């Protein structure tokens, strides 16, 4: 066990080590901090900013699509918006939010004093704002921002890409380095800093899901780095990896991209599974049903995620045997995913439930993520995918798993743990108001997209045929409801986190786990002496 008891009385008598007295003062605290709580907060605030910027771009898209015809933006700019919206939400909002939650919670959940590699922790956060400054600055460059979709398929992104593509590649490299360092840190922390008695199969599920996610990150972020480097070579150094005229293969790009991209999908959902698995038992006042099978389900989803990538490519002209393999492998994922949903429902069954804001978000997660899972199962059926592929049905599917899936999971986690972070209880009525507005908004936005997709509307188009008009108007109205209701969230966490009622240590009466044994707000340093877990 690497944990060493350094919290000796005589150390406290000296002033030269400010870390034992709380945070440093001023901006230096944030620039030079190695404290997991500070770094967690910075990740979360950064993620919230990106969520709002990416959301603004989504609203520009939905405003343009409110009715047929080109009203507000030109197709060039529309494509930049779809691209940047996707990149910012995936790499700027969802992933850093989970890393922020991991920073805050993993040490407190396993009884560790901090992350295992605190200086690297600081660096992995601080390069992130620069990656996104580079990416966002491309909006103001000649030729505009990247406009080839967040999947940046070659040769549209290489031979035919705007000059800013090089900046985009540099940005992706920095994000990748940040993610890999974050993942190394999380694995090192979980494997080395658990309190005595905290065996692997006693770890909270949030810790388990993050351990597995971190391995996924280490496995696939280098692949992403590789594919963007090959793009860089094609653009500037005369190679032809993806250029058919030079003997390359544009489809090779897609294979490499999705070998990264599919595990990436699970990187964005597994930690949410963990959060939901913490929240439902708390508010059902009943132990999580089937803990071991939950762990095995997450692990098998992670393993399967490496052999399903080409289900994103059913229409590229793969050989028949490839289609069949990827169809079967993809359908297999439904089994462990189903186990998770069944276990959550079995946890609620014969519980003693209450419905505070975190629980509302968790319940909505279970229902709406499952709907996204159903459409995912439909998309897995290769012959039918020829009709769904690259239509709004796909847009509906992945927004159902990412917005009421990943994003609701993050929000549930924030509502659940924020009292522990700030020491103040959030305003319940405001939280519930935020929940219901988001719930209604999200469904009005994304449910009609199933319909227009099935009716034949392709994705990533700035203008559409008349038969798609009505559902598009409805979706746009929903998007503005959802977007504006996030201001309630911002207000609630900023305002009430300061002035709300004082929180107790346990905060929620059904909550169990080490994080609820420390006072609220959690002291700047927790578990300097490892707790004993039995």
């Amino acid at each position, binding site marked *: 066990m690497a944990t060493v008891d350094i919290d000796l009385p005589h150390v406290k008598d000296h002033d030269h080590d400010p870390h034992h007295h709380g945070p440093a003062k001023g901006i230096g605290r944030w620039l030079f901090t190695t404290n997991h709580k500070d770094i967690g907060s910075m990740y979360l605030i950064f993620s919230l900013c990106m969520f709002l910027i990416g959301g603004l771009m989504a609203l520009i898209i939905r405003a343009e699509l409110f009715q047929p015809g*080109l009203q507000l933006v030109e197709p060039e700019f529309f494509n930049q918006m779809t691209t940047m919206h996707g990149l910012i939400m995936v790499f700027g909002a969802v992933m850093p939010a989970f890393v922020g939650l991991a920073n805050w919670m993993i040490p407190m959940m396993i009884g560790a004093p901090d992350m295992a590699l605190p200086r690297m922790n600081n660096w992995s956060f601080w390069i992130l704002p620069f990656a996104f400054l580079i990416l966002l600055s491309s909006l103001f460059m000649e030729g505009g921002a990247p406009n080839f979709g967040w999947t940046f*398929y070659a040769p549209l992104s290489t031979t*035919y890409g705007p000059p800013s593509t090089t900046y985009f590649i540099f940005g992706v490299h920095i994000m990748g380095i940040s993610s890999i360092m974050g993942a190394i840190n999380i694995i090192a922390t979980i494997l080395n800093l658990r309190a005595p008695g905290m065996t692997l199969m006693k770890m909270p599920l949030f810790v388990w899901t993050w351990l597995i996610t971190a391995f996924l990150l280490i496995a696939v972020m280098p692949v992403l780095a590789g594919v963007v480097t090959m793009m860089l070579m094609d653009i500037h150094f005369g190679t032809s990896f993806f250029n058919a005229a030079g003997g390359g293969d544009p489809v090779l790009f897609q294979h490499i991209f999705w070998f990264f991209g599919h595990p990436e999908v699970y990187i964005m959902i597994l930690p949410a599974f963990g959060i939901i698995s913490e929240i439902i038992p708390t508010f059902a006042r*009943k132990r999580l049903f089937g803990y071991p099978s939950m762990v095995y389900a997450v692990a098998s989803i992670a393993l399967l995620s490496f052999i399903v990538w080409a289900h994103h490519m059913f229409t590229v002209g793969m050989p028949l045997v490839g289609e*069949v393999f990827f*169809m079967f492998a993809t359908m297999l994922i439904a089994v462990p995913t189903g186990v998770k949903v069944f276990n959550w429902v079995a946890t609620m069954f014969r519980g003693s439930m209450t419905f505070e804001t975190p629980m509302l978000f968790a319940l909505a997660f*279970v229902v709406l993520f499952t*709907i996204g899972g159903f459409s995912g199962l439909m998309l897995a059926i290769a*012959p039918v995918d020829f009709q769904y592929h690259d239509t709004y049905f796909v847009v509906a599917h992945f927004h159902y798993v990412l917005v009421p899936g990943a994003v609701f999971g993050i929000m549930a986690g924030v509502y659940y743990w924020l009292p522990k972070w700030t020491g103040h209880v959030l305003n319940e009525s405001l939280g519930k108001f935020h929940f219901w507005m988001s719930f209604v908004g999200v469904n009005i936005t994304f449910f009609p997209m199933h*319909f227009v997709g099935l009716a034949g509307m392709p994705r990533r188009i700035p203008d559409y045929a008349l038969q798609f008009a009505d559902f598009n108007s409805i979706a746009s109205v929903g998007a503005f409801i959802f977007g504006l209701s996030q201001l309630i969230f911002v207000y609630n966490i900023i305002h009430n986190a300061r002035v709300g009622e004082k929180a107790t240590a346990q905060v929620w009466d059904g909550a169990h786990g080490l994080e609820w044994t420390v006072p609220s707000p959690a002291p700047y340093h927790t578990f300097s002496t490892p707790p004993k877990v039995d």
Partner: protein
Amino acid sequence: MTKAMMALGLSLASSSALADWQVNLNQGVTEISRDIFDLHMLIFWICVVIGVGVFGVMFYSIFMHRKSKGAQAAHFHENTTVEVVWTVIPFVILIGMAIPATGTLMDMYDTSEADVDIQITGYQWKWRYQYLDEEIDFFSNLSTPREEIYNEAGKNPNYLLEVDNPLVIPAGKKVRFLITANDVIHSWWVPHFAVKKDAIPGFINESWVRVDEPGVYRGQCTELCGKDHGFMPVVVEVKPQAEYDAWVAAQRAKKAALAEAASQSYSVDELIAMGEGVLSTGHAPPVMR
């Protein structure tokens, strides 16, 4: 300002009059499109049944097992039998689903013994159709006027789904498509045929269709291909064999006339007159500025 308001009113009126509330896939007009539709409905109903079961239990718990009703939490937290059952049952359902799906897939991949071969090439942002046996070769551009796109005129019913030269194929014949691209990746899709195949530069993909019902079928490019990705529709006219033959003959005659005209010499005035004709037919893509 008034003009803009009028255009807005016009577009609103036309869109609400013509829009519909279609919520499902089209059954389509080919055997394969109908097979796909059936698979789609099958998997949909499987999802509905599972969903009703899972959400049923969940909402039952939400209403019955709540603290405000005095519910006491039970203490069970595992049950091996139940867990094995709900792992095995989905697995069996999925196998049952995958078998017919594989059959349909095999039919879709059987491009042998075609009666007509047509090469389809995607360009930024138009389609080129080459009939390999007939020496017919033409481009197909969006024909929606830019006034309609910029809301300066009312939108016609086929807004964005109309082209100058549609692809023409014979009814009841197996038509094989050889699909490729000249610049970036495009994807050629006609929903009623359930044919969607990526057009990839340097590679040739195959697909096929046999349509018994003559008519006009419309689709779009479905792979983001740059600025005017939303403005390169696919229109296919399926004609009875006799009409198709007549069309082929007419295309050949047109080609012969062109070849004839190309070998003539013209005066400057004649050339100017012909040039005006080309410009006013609007062969420049309408959205380009």
